[in-house]
């Protein structure tokens, strides 16, 4: 029997479209009003940008295999948001230096993660979890819970408002970002080596891939991408607080899994993660529209996630 197979990213996008149309029939939703429907769709895509960007680093780390996972992403998002906040201080000309600083800091955090994992042989799960504690701890020590700062008007204008033909700036940035990720994963030596070490580190090494350098580079890049996520998030929320990044952490992993990337590494795509982020944001937005109490919303979210991954997140059976 031949199985009909749709690639996971396509399945996730289809699912998102179906969910969105379904959500139109809910009470107090857009109904048959196309104008409202379009603006709501744009808004949901805009919201998925932030999760999608944070999931980018997660995608790289997970593809790299070796139980790869980045649990420090949430803390890096908070750190980078607070750094942006305190460096920019409301001046447009300081936005670019701030961006450079947060990217470097994020890369440094990622590099430390990678060093612990590859040189000290600490399991990625615990190394990045510990790193997350260290970063959160440092933020608490330095800021004591309140950071003076202000966003620059240009960040609000570019990230949070419509920029071009009514399309929010965040989405335009997202398109360029996705193209960049595609080039990194599918059209560069780095991407080729990344999939190679994800499938099998020993064979990759024997075929001449410098595994140590690849792991360091992957975690460093993931840190920088998470930091960019933090930069974008603060541009949207326009406030900073200690728990800003944490709620993005596990959804970023879920987005990667929903997008069909194998959590054991070696197989996956960034488009999958983008589609996954869209589905997750859509589900939570639909549940909010339905005005459920928090407890029920959590249960429905869990059940929905379980159904989605049951549809196409299954691993190969032993018998095949």
């Amino acid at each position, binding site marked *: 029997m031949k199985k009909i197979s749709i690639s996971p990213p396509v399945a996730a996008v289809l699912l998102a479209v179906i969910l969105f149309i379904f959500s139109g029939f809910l009470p107090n939703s857009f109904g048959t009003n196309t104008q409202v429907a379009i603006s709501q769709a744009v808004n949901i895509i805009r919201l998925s940008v932030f999760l999608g960007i944070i999931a980018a680093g997660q995608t790289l780390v997970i593809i790299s295999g070796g*139980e790869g*996972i980045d649990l420090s992403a949430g803390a890096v998002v908070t750190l980078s948001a607070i750094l942006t906040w305190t460096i920019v201080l409301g001046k447009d000309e300081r936005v670019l230096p701030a961006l450079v600083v947060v990217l470097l800091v994020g890369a440094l955090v990622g590099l430390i993660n990678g060093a*612990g994992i590859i*040189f*000290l*042989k*600490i*399991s990625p*799960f*615990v*190394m990045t*979890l*510990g*790193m*997350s*504690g*260290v970063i*959160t*701890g*440092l933020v*608490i*020590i330095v800021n*004591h819970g309140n950071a003076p700062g202000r966003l620059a008007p240009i960040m609000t204008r570019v990230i949070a408002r419509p920029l071009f033909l009514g399309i929010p700036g965040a989405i335009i940035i997202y398109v360029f970002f996705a193209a960049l990720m595609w080039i990194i994963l599918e059209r560069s030596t780095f991407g080729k080596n990344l999939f190679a070490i994800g499938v099998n580190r020993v064979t990759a090494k024997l075929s001449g891939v410098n595994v140590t350098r690849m792991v360091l580079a992957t975690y460093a890049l993931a840190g920088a991408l998470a930091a960019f996520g933090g930069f974008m998030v603060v541009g949207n929320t326009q406030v900073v607080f200690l728990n800003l990044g944490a709620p993005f952490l*596990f959804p970023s*992993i*879920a987005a990667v*899994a929903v997008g069909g990337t*194998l*959590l*054991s590494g070696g197989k996956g795509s960034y488009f999958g993660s983008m589609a996954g982020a869209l589905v997750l944001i859509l589900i939570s937005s639909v549940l909010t529209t339905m005005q459920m*109490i*928090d*407890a*029920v*919303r*959590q*249960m*429905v*979210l*869990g*059940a929905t*996630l*379980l159904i989605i*991954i*049951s549809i196409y*997140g*299954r*691993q*190969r*059976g*032993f*018998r095949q």
Partner: protein
Amino acid sequence: MKLPSSSHLSLRYPYFLSAIIFIVVLLVNFYFQRTILEGNTINNNMRVFLPLVLLTAGQAIVVLTGGIDISVGSIVSIVSALLATRVGLDGTVEQTLTWFGIVLLVGIIAGSINGIFIAYLRLQPIITTYATSFFFGGLALFILPQPGGGIPAEVANIYRTSNPLGLHWAFYVIPLLIMTWVFIRQTRYGRYLFAVGGRAQAAYETAVPVSQVIFSTYVVSGFMAAMAGICITLLTGSGNPQIGDPMTLQAITAVVIGGTAMSGGVGGIAGPIMGALTLGVIKNIISFANIDNWWQTFVNAMIIITALAAPGIIGLFRRNRS
């Protein structure tokens, strides 16, 4: 293939490094808190440590077969919520015991749900248990929306104040756990656990019932989570629908400190139990070393990373020397 000596050592004696880490943190704790070795203090400490120890033991079995269970904390929360609402502060002793039985069953059912999805539908463990952790966590909040309620004080006091033969219950429970494990490890089932963790495909090809074994580990984990939930409810005497949330990552950290490889196939119960005790002692150190409130998160994380990095650093030096 010749392994470097430190990883060779940790493969042969997975508990070796965790024992050293545990002794070191215990000594540091002794430096800050001289009363730590007095009977009363030990009993008080063990009472607080026991819930995490139980949770960690269940998690260790799952990790041993190459899985992970991030829903355990929410199972603890369900148990706490159930006991607090169904028994109540003015419940009878019989009622409490009946509900202890029921919540253990709830733990087993919750674990079975995880197990069915992971073992039979072949979903990835981390994402499956992440999804069920939402489901269970929501259920706990549904049963008990805010912290409150509790269990009768007379029952809670058995856990909180009584020390049979001068030792807290934990001193009987933990050896019992380890003895059970030592027995199980020698049985056919015990060997299956290691076989599945080592390489599931190879185990399947040599007629190991892989799906059943994987399923069983999540049931064990759910059961142990319910036990941990009972203990923590006894300890606090009250209900809290989110009490388990921070415990999940602690349990996984304890498993790793205990020398269990996250990829499965190496480890056991004794190491992770020492890992859980280590985490408890680290908390003790932080509170007795008079560390400034602002610094606690940082110091806690640094101690854990340093403890895990120590064997690797020693390994690096050895490699350079030879």
